[in-house]
């Protein structure tokens, strides 16, 4: 059991923890942080796969490393957008969690479509 397998199991546990956080935490900010934990678990999984594929004198397969670098930056911009939306929602309506039930089914918009 070399240490790479340990990291693999740790990645699986992180994914489970992140998913648990998303399902149970009511606050939007906590859901977003749990998303980041889930995402870092998936990237760690890529890291383990890369480490297992170490060959040709490299300490790891560079292709999954490229996936992870792209993924980390995409995950950051997604959570930046989510955090900004959560802050704006808090500013406008004082809500910091998804309202219970489906009263938020439809935005009541007597919209005058400014054609």
């Amino acid at each position: 059991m070399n240490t790479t397998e340990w990291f693999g199991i740790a990645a699986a546990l992180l994914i489970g923890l992140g998913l648990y956080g998303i399902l149970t935490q009511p606050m939007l900010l906590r859901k977003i942080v749990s998303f980041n934990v889930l995402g870092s678990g998936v990237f760690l999984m890529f890291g383990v796969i890369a480490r297992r594929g170490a060959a040709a004198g490299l300490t790891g397969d560079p292709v999954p490393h490229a996936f992870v670098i792209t993924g980390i930056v995409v995950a950051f911009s997604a959570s930046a957008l989510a955090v900004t939306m959560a802050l704006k929602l808090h500013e406008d309506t004082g809500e910091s969690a998804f309202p219970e039930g489906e009263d938020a089914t439809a935005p009541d918009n007597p919209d005058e479509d400014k054609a």
Partner: protein
Amino acid sequence: MSDVVLHGGLILLILSLAVMTVVTRDTFAAITAFVVYGMLLGLAWVALGSIDVALTEAALGSGITGALLLRAAVCLRDKEAAAEVRRPGRAAHRVSGLVCAAIAAGLAAMVLMLPDPAPSLAPAVMESLPATQVKNPVTGVLLAFRAWDTFLETVVLVLALVAVWGMTPDALWGGRPGELRQHAHDGPLVFLARVLPPVGVMLGIYLFWIGADEPGGKFQGGTILAAMWMLTLLAGLTDAPPVSRRWLRAAMVAGPATFLLAGLSGVVFASGLFAYPPGFAKPVILLIEAASTVSIGVTLCLLAIGPPSRPANR
């Protein structure tokens, strides 16, 4: 054998901080645990043998993500009681706990059952790397073999920033993001913001430059530049530009536009779109990386600060 102590300790710490991030009721403790978790993840990537990803994780995790989440945590922390009422009941907790445990167990089993001669593209990369005249294999994959992914990646960043700006109230469009700039006077915060950025900018450019041959590159360099600009903004030494400023738009678009032009020029100078002229690949790659470093730095910093919140003349 000597790794057991380090890797074991690292994994235990990472898992305990992740549990802390997900489970505690106090939002601020959870966010701080997450920032520390990000730093530890950087160490984990070094233990997994990839310095490029460790640099990215360390630069993003302890830098801008920390600032973004801490700012949100302080704004939203008095809302914990209100959100508590919406916490799902005991049964729902247990059920989702079981589901997540099952998924984690399945994945752990899956990782242990992956094939032993692990299929790897490392030999293929090392065999075609000389053609790209770049010695760092990860940069070779990012900028040559899978240049298409990386190009779209920089477009995703521009879209994310425009999406964040889409939340501005119409009256404030064209205004400046971030808080009102106090007149900066001395103190540890301002002193830090006066001394660190020059070193940071130098390190950012150094990381971008060595990215071709050693671990580093445009994402890592751009992230550090973004962190340094944000430090000066937080301390009030500089002020965020209005969003409709022309040079800001040019800086945002510089990376993807250079990539696009280099891709198109591939038809003329090389065998096809997004192909590099043989023997001339490294200069083109460095040009693309230089432009991308600038736009990544500008875009990430403005993403973390948020939409415009005050008129341009203030």
